[in-house]
Every structure is written in structure tokens, then in C-alpha cells.
């Protein structure tokens, strides 16, 4: 336990003790309210088990999803490769997240991605289509321009407008589920880069300072929750990868409502300095989120 955390907890404990003593509710002493963590990092388990534990420490999915909500879960389904290649988000994790959302009372849970490779092959070969259906979610297409609505991004520096998938604009809760991977030009692809899959013209980003566009987009819409899948991590040849040998089993997961913090922590996990990942730096400068992990209240769980 770090000093900061210690103070935090002692303060809460103190307040609780005082108040409960005042009102004479001794049993409440045993039930600490969950800490308000900014970020949860967990390692050593299977993707679904880690998610169960991590989300519980944030107060459970009901903290984010309320009864009757429409939820969009956006994994990375960009590539027509099998799950073992870790180019797409782990299907087991996606499945688990959807179940939590439905248990929390979500009306509909939609899943889509604007894929790079042929979309229907991506959906099926990534194993995500199956896992979504099994969990009771709805896998919907992202391959047609008609789903994308023009929006203006007033705070964007290079990205002033973009066409965004209508479900993102309409949903109550937007859960971003990227997979941590190496990337040939942006070094890493994590939460912010995963948002390229909810816009239509990704070519525009490539033409107009890719790193800046990646940082610009969350100024328009930040996901309500970012769940970084770092169970299997593609260490080189990303984002598509060439073979199974690109992948290392890290068995980790990072969850945060702060997209910049999630990316900064994931970068560290990967072995990179967040300072070296340009879009993380840009987004921090634009005050989209916190990249200095020492300023955050982090729950670290090792199973």
C-alpha cells in the first residue's frame, strides 16, 4: 500500500468509524464502501476471471450501466486472424463484459467494429461474433457508410470533423475494449487508437497527422469505460502480426474511465514510456486525461 493510498483509506475509515459510532451502526464498520479507484490493473488470471475481479473493485458494472441502458461494447475486430494471434480483442473477455452489462440491466448491448480486413471474415474468425451471440449481445455491422453520421470535433487540432457510427452517438454507455499491441507507426495501439474503428474515413487520419487525430477524437467523445485486454500481447509486427511468435502471454488487464491513464498504464506494461507515445502526450496536453500515473489512485491486483 502506497502512502497516498494509506492516507486515503485511513481517512475514509476514520470518517466511517466516527459516523457509525455517532449513529450506532456498528456492523457497517465491516462493509467498507469501495474505494474510488482511478484505475485498476490486474494480472495472473484468465481474461474473464480478471475482469470479474477488476470490475468488482470499481463497484461492479452497475456503477456504469443502469437499468434500461443501451450499451456499445467496442472491441478491436480489425483483422481476419484467429484469436491466438492476438490481433483482435480476446473473445472471452468480450463475452464476459456483455454478460456483466446485461446483468446490470442493460436493454441492448451492441458490438461492432469498422474493420480493416474483410469485415465478415473478421467478425467470424476473431471468434467475437460467436462470443457476442453466446453472451446475448448483438453484433452489428460497421461496414457501410450509411451508419456513420457527420459530427464536428470543435476541440480537435487536426481532426475537425468525422463521420461517427450512429450507435456511438445514440448509446447511453460506451465501453471501449482495445487489445494492447505494437503498431508500426504509432508504436502502440491501445484505447485511443481503437476509436479509429468507430469512424468511417480512417484514411483521413492517416493523411492528416495520425498521432494528432488519435488524440483529437476523444475530445469529442470519451468512452465511459476503457478495458485494455493485455492477456496476449503482440510485441512486434503489429497491428496485424505475422505469426504466433509475435505474441507474449502477459495475462494482464487494465481498466479505467480515463482513456489517457489507461493508455499510459498499458504502455508501461508493454515496456514503453508513455512519454514516447506521441498521441498519449498530445491527449495529455489537451487535458483529455492524466498520463502521470503517480497522481492516480490505482488498485493493483495480482492473482
Amino acid at each position, binding site marked *: 500500500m502506497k502512502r497516498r493510498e494509506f492516507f486515503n483509506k485511513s481517512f475514509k475509515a476514520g470518517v466511517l468509524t466516527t459516523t457509525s459510532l455517532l449513529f450506532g451502526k456498528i456492523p457497517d464498520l465491516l462493509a467498507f464502501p469501495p474505494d474510488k479507484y482511478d484505475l485498476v490493473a490486474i494480472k495472473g488470471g484468465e481474461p474473464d476471471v480478471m475482469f470479474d475481479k477488476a470490475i468488482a473493485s470499481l463497484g461492479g458494472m452497475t456503477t456504469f450501466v443502469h437499468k434500461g441502458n443501451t450499451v456499445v461494447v467496442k472491441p478491436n475486430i480489425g483483422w481476419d486472424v484467429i484469436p491466438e494471434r492476438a490481433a483482435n480483442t480476446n473473445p472471452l473477455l468480450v463475452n464476459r463484459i456483455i454478460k456483466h452489462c446485461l446483468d446490470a440491466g442493460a436493454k441492448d448491448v451492441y458490438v461492432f467494429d469498422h474493420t480493416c*480486413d474483410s469485415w465478415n471474415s473478421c467478425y467470424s474468425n476473431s471468434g467475437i461474433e460467436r462470443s457476442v451471440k453466446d453472451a446475448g449481445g448483438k453484433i452489428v455491422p460497421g461496414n457501410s457508410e450509411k451508419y456513420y453520421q457527420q459530427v464536428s470535433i470543435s476541440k480537435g487540432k487536426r481532426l475537425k470533423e468525422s463521420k461517427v457510427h450512429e450507435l456511438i452517438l445514440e448509446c447511453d454507455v460506451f465501453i471501449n475494449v482495445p487489445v494492447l499491441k505494437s503498431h508500426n507507426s504509432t508504436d502502440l495501439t491501445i484505447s485511443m487508437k481503437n476509436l479509429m474503428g468507430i469512424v468511417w474515413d480512417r484514411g483521413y487520419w492517416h493523411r492528416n497527422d495520425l498521432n494528432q487525430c488519435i488524440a483529437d477524437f476523444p475530445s469529442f467523445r470519451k468512452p465511459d469505460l476503457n478495458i485494455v485486454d493485455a492477456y496476449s500481447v503482440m510485441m512486434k509486427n503489429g497491428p496485424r502480426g505475422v505469426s504466433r511468435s509475435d505474441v507474449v502471454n502477459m495475462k494482464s488487464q487494465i481498466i479505467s474511465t480515463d482513456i489517457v491513464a489507461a493508455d499510459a498504464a498499458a504502455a508501461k506494461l508493454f515496456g514503453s514510456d508513455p512519454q514516447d507515445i506521441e498521441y498519449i502526450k498530445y491527449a495529455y496536453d489537451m487535458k483529455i486525461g492524466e498520463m502521470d500515473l503517480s497522481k492516480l489512485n490505482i488498485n493493483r491486483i495480482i*492473482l
Partner: protein
Amino acid sequence: MTKLKKIRVIVALLFFFTISLIFLDYINVIPSSVYDYVLWLQFIPSLTKFVNTLTVSAGGFLIVLLSVLFFGRVYCSSVCPLGTLQDFISRISQKLFGVSYFNWSEEHKWIRYPVLILSILSIPLIGMFIIGLLDPFSNFGRILTNLFYPVILLLNNVLSSLFESIGLYLIYPVDIRAISLVGLLFSIIILSVLIVMASKRGRLFCNTICPLGTFLGFISKVSLYKIKIKEEDCESCGACETVCKAECINADSKEINFERCVVCFNCFRECPTTAINYYKQNLLVSDNTIQFKADRRIFLNKLYYIVIGLGSFGFTQIKIIPEKESTVPIKKNVPVSPPGSNSIDHFTSTCTACHLCVAVCPTKVLQPSILHYGLEGLLQPRMDYLTNYCNYECVECMMVCPTGALQKLLIEDKKLTQLGKSKFIKENCIVDTERKECGACSERCPTKAVRMIPYENNLHIPDIKNEYCIGCGACEFACPTRPYKAIYVEGNPKHLIAEKPPAEILDKKIDYEEEFPF
């Protein structure tokens, strides 16, 4: 004798609908392994495949030949889907414009034999160009792929929108942008010709233009059994002539020109007696003296103008969106032929442009060519990397090709078959012109033949290792520069074998007990 007619109709419908199904199966529910069986009997694809692969499995045409040697052109009214299409057209027009009857007409020997001879003689010179253009199966395929397929997609999208408007994502919309104008135009012309010819004159096409019809007709001169009118049983009612869509029955002289007979058995059903029937033929007696006196030059000239006209239309297909303009134009010298085609020579000399591969291609990277392979390769599919790129995991086109122009490769071999090589034009690249990161090409490269290497100001610029490149076109498709791409694929005239991308094992040991690095 109506039984024969019924069987014939059932067989014809079976072929017609199964073939239509495999062409129009846009969601790929029918496994491609079935295609071979469905198309096994299609004469020109089967013969082409046999000549090119010398495999017995391509021997469907032998069965057809055998059937002709026994009973005449049974093929034309049962197996040939274009024949059945003409029967549909003729049926519909009869329904629409009232009952019309067929009448005996003279044979157009001066058209059909020159067309046949020209088709065959041209093979050494211009490959399958004329045969492919006239082959009934390929024409049927082109009409389905270029005309009906987009209509089906449109219907799908309308339905999909309807369902989505009530919140159901039952039917996924499909991309219909990849429509080939040259293919569409050509199919409209052929279909119009068929409608004009078939609505009034039945199987006129089969007995004037179709080289296969002429060829099988020529063979049927020596058929063991021929359909004839037995004069002593005939009541001279003339009913047979009125229902003969090949217009080959002369009721007055009680003669049947069996060379033109498509063996539809309409006359069998109509004849009040049994005068019309199969009669055994004395093999030694045949009157096969072929006469032809057509002007080949005029024919070639006309063909040339048609083709040029089509070509100039096709050029409107390339769309250019100028944005931040790149400056160096791309000059491609060699088109990229599909995987399994081995070499451009082999491909252009065996493909009849039936467009079945175009129809099944899931990414629609396969597009009918205009003049990319030269005039003689008109409409033969090529890899069009402005439309899309070749899916690394896919072998569909090779699985379905009925002519052997695309030979089946195992997926592992296909992944190492180099169709062409990537070329990089640094002056067009965002990284060089804008001094910003991009990497769209390297991102999609399935073999990392296109890698990003360090460049000025901590940037990364593409670098191509051609030994790993398979020419799939992912880089070219993804490259966001306009109007000229910064990376493109130059075709290999003969496909080569690429090296397997290296797979060094990472020696990263993960300690799951170790504290987080933050």
C-alpha cells in the same frame, strides 16, 4: 411421348437454378467445393480445363460429346443455362404478346460456320478471346455477375434497411460500390441481343452465333439416333413445326435439320401420332459438306469497334478524389493476375471470362479487365487494388474456376504465391511530404514485407522487403494519398514463390508475480 419433354424440363431447370444460385450466392452459403460438380458438364469450361490440366476430373465434356454422338444436342436444351434463359425469354414474350408460332427457316450456314472456325483458329493467336466472348456458359455467368448480382445486393440492402428501421440487425448490408461498368455494359448488350433474338425466333442465337451450338450440331451429323418424321405415320397437321424453337422442322417436306435441333422434345409432345421420334442412323450415310463464304474481315472489324467502344466506357470507373495531391503518377506495366493463374500467359489463354470468380470473390478485388491484358484479355478478371485487396486467408476464386485458368492452390501455398511486387514512391508518401506518421500500408501487410523503418525526426517510413511480398495489394488499397498512391503492386508476368516471413520466438519471460511497472 410427353414424358421425355417433362424430364428435359426438370433437368434444364435444375441446371439453370443451381448454376444461378452459385453465381448469386453473395453471402457464400454454398461451399465452393460443390461448384465443381455443378459446373462439371459445362462444355467449354470443362474442355478448357481438360486441355490445360489433363485431369480426368475435367472430363465432363466427354460425357456431353458422347450424348451428342448418341442423341444429338441434348446439351443445348438441358445443360446449357443460356439456352434455358432463352427459353424463359421466349416463354415470357409469348405470354406478353400473345401466342406466336415458330416457322421453319433456312440455316444460316454462312454465319455459324465462320464464327466457329474463327473461334477455333484464333486460339493460338489471341487465346480464348472470341470463344470466351461467345461461350454460352460464360455469357450466362457475366449476365448474372454484372447485372443480376448487383440487383440482388440492392434488394438485400433494401431489406436490411427495412429490418434496421425496426431495430433488427437481421440482414447485413453489403457493399455495392464495386460494380464493373464494362462488365455491366457488355452484359446488357448480350442480354438485349438474346431478348431480341429469342422472343420471336426461339433458339436463333444457338444456331447462328453460338460456336458451341454449331460445333455440337456438326457432331450431331453422325449421331447414332436422330429425330425424324416417319412419313407414313404423319398426318401432316404441321403442329411440330409451330412449336420448334430451333426452327428446324419443315412440316411441308417432312424434314428435320437435326444439326440445328436442340432436342427440346416439344415436337414429341405436340405430335398427335408417333411419327416424330428417334430413329437409328446408318453411320456411313452423312451429307456433311460444309459451305461457308463469310467475309471474315468485316466481322473482325465490327468486333474491334464494339470492343473499343466498350473500353472507352470502362475508363470512367477509376475515380479520383483529389485532396492533398500527390505528384508522381504511377505507370503500371504488368497487370496482376489472380492467384492460381500461374502466369498471365496461362491465364489469358485459358480464361473464358465467365466471371464466376468475380461473383464469389468476398472482397471484390477481382474485377473484369478492360484493356489491361490487351484486347484479347477483355473482361478477363484482374486484381484491382483500387477496389480492394486480396484476403490473405482466402482461396475461393481458385476453388470455383471451371476452366482451370485458376488452378487450386493449398492455402499455405497461396500465402507464398507472389502475384506481383510492391513498389514504393517516396515522393508521394505522407511521411515524406507531410513529415507526419502514417503507416497505413504496413499496417495491413499480412507478411510485413512492408515495414516501417526509422526516418528523419523520429518518423517511420515504409521499406519493402520484396522477398516476403505476395502482391496482395493491401498496401496499395490502404495508401491514403491521392490522386496517386505512394505504394503500388507491379504484376509478375509469371507468379513467383515468396519467402516465408521470419518468425523469431521472443525470449520474453513473464513473471506473473512481479509488481506492476507503475
